[in-house]
């Protein structure tokens, strides 16, 4: 239900994003994983129509058949919140500290529906219950600072699903939360997605989290999707060298309680660091940092798709297992 084709975003003449092909099925959950400077936030902004002035954008972002990039600002605003919901990283910053919880959620309802008066309040209580907040009625009059981080994020989610969107975009929604709270919020997102048949685009730097939540994953580096496919497939059998390097650098948790094997073991690192915008090498954007670079890599690698719908952009992919 979300189809991105040949999306290109340029700022000041420099192409920062180029996504040839990205699909999200209705009701499924796609993870977009990348580090700082990968372009993942820009991609989300491009889909949401929230790119800053002066950015050139081309290609197509088809949502439910309609190309979002052809919409005017007004039309886009209607889609946002209504068909597409957003949850951001730091709930403390996304919630208005001066406004009571009830009012903030009811705003989301009022903008996108004709409900008035007590019907709105009922819906707010219902939504707060759906995000598993205990005793929702008592929360209506509270201010954000009176809630914990996890509770604040649940409120954000409630506001985001108020208009029953078809797609929920979550950008690092649990990064600022404790690990136990994180698990709860992630489970909540999964259950909401399943119950409402709502697609989820989950953006994160953390492959472990994405594996937990999502069915499929797209790895973004230097504004390109370098690998995509089913999450289990990509994580156990990464093909692009960046993906396998990212997996190797992840501290992870020991399998089968084998803590003694973990202790003191160095992690495999990626040499160098992510280049600044516009300073990426020609051809394969990862080639300056890749251990397995070949001469071919100075030209742009082709997109290859395996039978299991596992796509990658690499001249010299890894074969079988993270290496």
């Amino acid at each position, binding site marked *: 239900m979300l189809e991105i084709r040949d999306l290109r975003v340029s700022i000041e003449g420099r192409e920062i994003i180029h996504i040839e092909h990205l699909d999200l099925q209705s009701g499924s959950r796609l993870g977009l994983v990348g580090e700082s400077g990968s372009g993942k936030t820009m991609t989300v902004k491009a889909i949401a129509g929230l790119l800053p002035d002066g950015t050139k954008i081309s290609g197509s972002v088809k949502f439910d058949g309609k190309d979002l990039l052809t919409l005017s600002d007004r039309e886009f605003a209607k889609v946002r919140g209504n068909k597409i919901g957003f949850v951001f990283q730091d709930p403390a910053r996304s919630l208005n500290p001066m406004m009571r919880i009830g009012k903030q959620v009811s705003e989301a309802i009022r903008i996108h529906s004709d409900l008035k008066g007590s019907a709105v309040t009922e819906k707010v209580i219902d939504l707060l219950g759906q995000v598993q907040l205990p005793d929702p009625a008592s929360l209506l009059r509270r201010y954000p600072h009176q809630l914990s981080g996890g509770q604040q994020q649940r409120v954000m989610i409630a506001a985001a699903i108020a208009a029953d969107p078809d797609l929920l975009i979550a950008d690092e929604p649990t990064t600022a939360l404790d*690990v136990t709270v994180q698990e709860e919020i992630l489970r909540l997102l999964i259950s909401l997605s399943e119950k409402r048949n709502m697609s989820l685009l989950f953006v994160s*730097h953390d*492959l472990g989290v994405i594996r937990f939540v999502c069915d499929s994953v797209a790895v973004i580096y230097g504004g390109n999707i370098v690998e995509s496919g089913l999450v289990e497939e990509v994580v156990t059998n990464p093909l692009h060298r960046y993906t396998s390097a990212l997996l190797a650098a*992840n501290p992870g948790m020991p399998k089968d309680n084998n803590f003694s094997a973990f202790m003191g073991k160095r992690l495999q690192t990626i040499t160098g*660091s992510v280049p600044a915008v516009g300073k990426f090498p020609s051809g394969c954007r990862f080639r300056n940092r890749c251990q397995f670079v070949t001469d071919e890599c100075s030209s742009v690698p082709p997109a290859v798709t395996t039978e299991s719908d596992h796509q990658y952009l690499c001249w010299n992919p890894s074969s079988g297992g993270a290496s």
Partner: protein
Amino acid sequence: MTSLVEVSNMFFHYPRARVKGGEINWTLQDISLKIEAKSTVGIVGESGSGKSTLIRVMCALLHHQQGTVTFNGQDVSQFQGDKANELRRENQIVFQNPRRSLDPRMTIRRSLSEPIRALHDRNPDDAEIIANIERVGLGTEVLSRFPHQLSGGQLQRVGIARSLSVKPTILYADEPVSALDVSVQAQVLNLMMDLRDELGLTLVMVSHDLGVVSRMCEQIIVMRHGRIVEAGLTESVLSNPQSDYTAALLKAARAASLERESQG
């Protein structure tokens, strides 16, 4: 044999921390622990557990109200003047957010020189500075730059170099890699492990990431609401947690982590 750091029944509250009814809102309660020289200890817990406060009390940046904290057998609350300076030399901290722990108006060279200037009352010579910066894997060209010109990973290396410039015995690290990308995190963690082995450092690391602690710290302390819930060898505690809380932490950490072999 006395441990390097010993804490007995320590209680700490922030100034003016009182709840309704006049009762004190203790941030740390009844903390007792021992840190042996050259060991690596991880302190884990969630927000509000007091873990960051604990290391600050242990290196005497904050002063506890009850109980004792000793360094090399001596009570740290008695340290004054020169002795206090020596305590500072032996105990150094690496902070969580590299962008915030360096004065934005000071060059890297200046920031690196500050501990020696403060604790040894002299200016470090070029050779010293260069040795410091190269030891953390950075080149001398960063010395004339300002913090805003460096990446997060580079800044964290500078922070580590700064702490090590006075050759401390213990290095406390407060979530040293939490603010960094995964690949940069790996670089800094490897660096810390290498330096620890090379310099024979005692390392006390606060982290919320059990995966990181599993790799770096042979001992672990689990904290919750200002108390120590469980402590011991990382291997034992994590493979066989005695406390429900530790088990819950483990379960949540496992759920959202990549389970893997140690390499690859």
